[in-house]
């Protein structure tokens, strides 16, 4: 493979059908939100808010995992990924937007009592109130509104700052060359990974687990981390494959896809491992305050519960086991889409039981519309960010290794 015919200033043009489709998606999303809020009753409002939280969380998680991807590559001094870094960088660049949207959804849901009503209602922590709840009162040192919102802002703010920094270093590298930007990225990636590792579980506890504040699981943070990481990898794979099919990024070869496929395969198994570790301990100990979580999911979400396992475990394991499937772009694309949809199902059965009254969940216009809206928004923002700079970081010190990557 020759490297002399690579156009190092190749830029993505965000126009035409993709742009139209992403705007159509956003319009659909706005329509679905309007429908949910205007046409429905309290139950419908809760369901709309639950869906907004689901997709807002998904959006933010995919973007911040993009930053995590960058940081992992820098810390590992990985060479294979040097030529595809612009894609996670575009996702990292979108994180501030995703973070603002998520914080708006969370605070709106919190103050209108549509989300987090298990721990945020009048008198829950007041001993003299008829609503007094000893468990929530015990948790209120941690789980109170100012501290909760403060943590959200702090975590998302830190992730966003690091995202912007990594992107900026890489753009500076394009202009100046040399090793300075790489060294700075390496150093900051080390700091970021430590912060990220300790804070994502808390972020997941806050955003999702506290929907059912009486229940807790220490595995939950890693379970969510696995979900966000694998869905981010699937997103990166999808973007790269589609770009390549559209004629961009011709330097990406089957070995890069192979690596991404291995990552998706491996972390799908990791996800299953953590999922099962959480399930088995609760199942085996059989304590009512813990089993209530799975009781709800078995009683009202049985189909989703098993669909989740089928899409996120069986599909990637069976379809990505084979070497040729990882190296054939259309097959990898298929699995990545399945995994991405699968983690929507995963988040759906994490969030819905805690946010919507039992038996009032559903799958219809609101779910599909809001998902389409956020997919449109993600496509629009990420591809806009991607189109601003060349598709290859031409001065990355390990670029040649990536261009000659061979497995």
């Amino acid at each position: 493979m020759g490297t002399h015919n690579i156009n190092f200033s190749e830029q993505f043009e965000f126009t035409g059908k993709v742009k139209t489709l992403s705007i159509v998606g956003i319009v659909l999303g706005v329509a679905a939100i309007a429908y949910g809020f205007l046409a429905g009753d309290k139950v419908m409002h809760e369901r709309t808010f639950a869906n907004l939280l689901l997709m807002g969380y998904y959006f933010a998680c995919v973007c911040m995992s993009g930053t995590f991807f960058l940081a992992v590559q820098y810390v590992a001094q990985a060479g294979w990924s040097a030529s595809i870094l612009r894609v996670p960088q575009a996702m990292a660049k979108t994180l501030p937007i995703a973070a603002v949207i998520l914080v708006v959804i969370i605070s709106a849901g919190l103050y209108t009592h549509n989300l987090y009503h298990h721990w945020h209602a009048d008198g829950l922590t007041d001993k003299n109130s008829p609503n007094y709840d000893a468990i929530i009162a015990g948790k209120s040192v941690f789980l109170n509104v100012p501290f909760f919102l403060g943590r959200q802002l702090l975590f998302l703010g830190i992730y966003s700052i690091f995202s912007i920094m990594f992107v900026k270093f890489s753009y500076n590298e394009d202009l100046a060359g040399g090793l300075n930007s790489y060294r700075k990225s390496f150093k900051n990636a080390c700091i970021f990974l430590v912060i990220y590792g300790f804070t994502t579980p808390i972020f997941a506890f806050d955003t999702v687990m506290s929907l059912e504040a009486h229940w807790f699981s220490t595995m939950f943070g890693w379970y969510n981390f696995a979900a966000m990481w694998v869905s981010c990898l699937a997103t990166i794979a999808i973007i790269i494959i589609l770009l390549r099919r559209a004629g961009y990024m011709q330097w990406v070869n089957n070995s890069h896809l192979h690596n991404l496929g291995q990552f998706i395969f491996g972390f799908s198994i990791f996800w299953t491992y953590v999922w099962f570790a959480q399930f088995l301990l609760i199942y085996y100990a059989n304590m009512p305050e813990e089993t209530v979580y799975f009781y709800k999911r078995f009683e009202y979400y049985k189909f989703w519960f098993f669909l989740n396992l089928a899409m996120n475990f069986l599909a990637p394991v069976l379809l990505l086991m084979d070497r040729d499937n990882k190296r054939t772009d259309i097959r990898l694309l298929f699995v990545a889409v399945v995994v991405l949809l699968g983690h929507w199902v995963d988040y759906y059965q994490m969030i819905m039981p805690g946010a919507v009254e039992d038996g009032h969940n559903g799958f219809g216009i609101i779910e599909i519309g809001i998902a389409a809206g956020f997919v449109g928004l993600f496509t629009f923002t990420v591809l806009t960010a991607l189109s601003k700079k060349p598709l290859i970081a031409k001065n990355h010190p390990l670029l040649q290794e990536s261009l000659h990557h061979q497995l």
Partner: protein
Amino acid sequence: MSDIKYILGSFGDPDEMMHGIDKLQENNITIYDVYTPMPIHGIEAKLGVKRSRIDIAAFCFGITGTCAAFALIYFCAVIDWKVNIGGKPSFALPDFIPIMFELTVLFCAFGMVLTYYASTHLFPGRAPRVMDLRATDDRFVIAIDAHENAAHTVIDDLLKDAGALEVKYNERKYISYE
């Protein structure tokens, strides 16, 4: 017919050796094998080495482990000695999964190591057999079967032209650590 069994071209540089392989193949000389101290990209494709089938072996060992674990727990917990644990049924599949998983990994790992030993004739106590000791150190060695390729002088010249530092004639296939 001479006693020479193998002709060894010993190179100091991997690129020159790859060039040597090209030269030999252009002249229709079949290469028995190539020995290098480190992995070299693209050499399998060039020599037409078939893909390893150790993954199939791994799968077979793994599935054996899964079945063995299942059989063991099923016999212990369901047939032979039922124990009431928290009122759960004796045949509680989620409990089985960790053990099935672990035995799958164990059987798979040991099985692959043994397969590897068997297929490379490498097991404890056996002196490793090599064609050229320096192929384990700093030389890149092309081995050519002398009986199959008659024109030894041609091979000799080709190897020397491609940059071989040394051409050796082995009368025995392997030289062991004596």
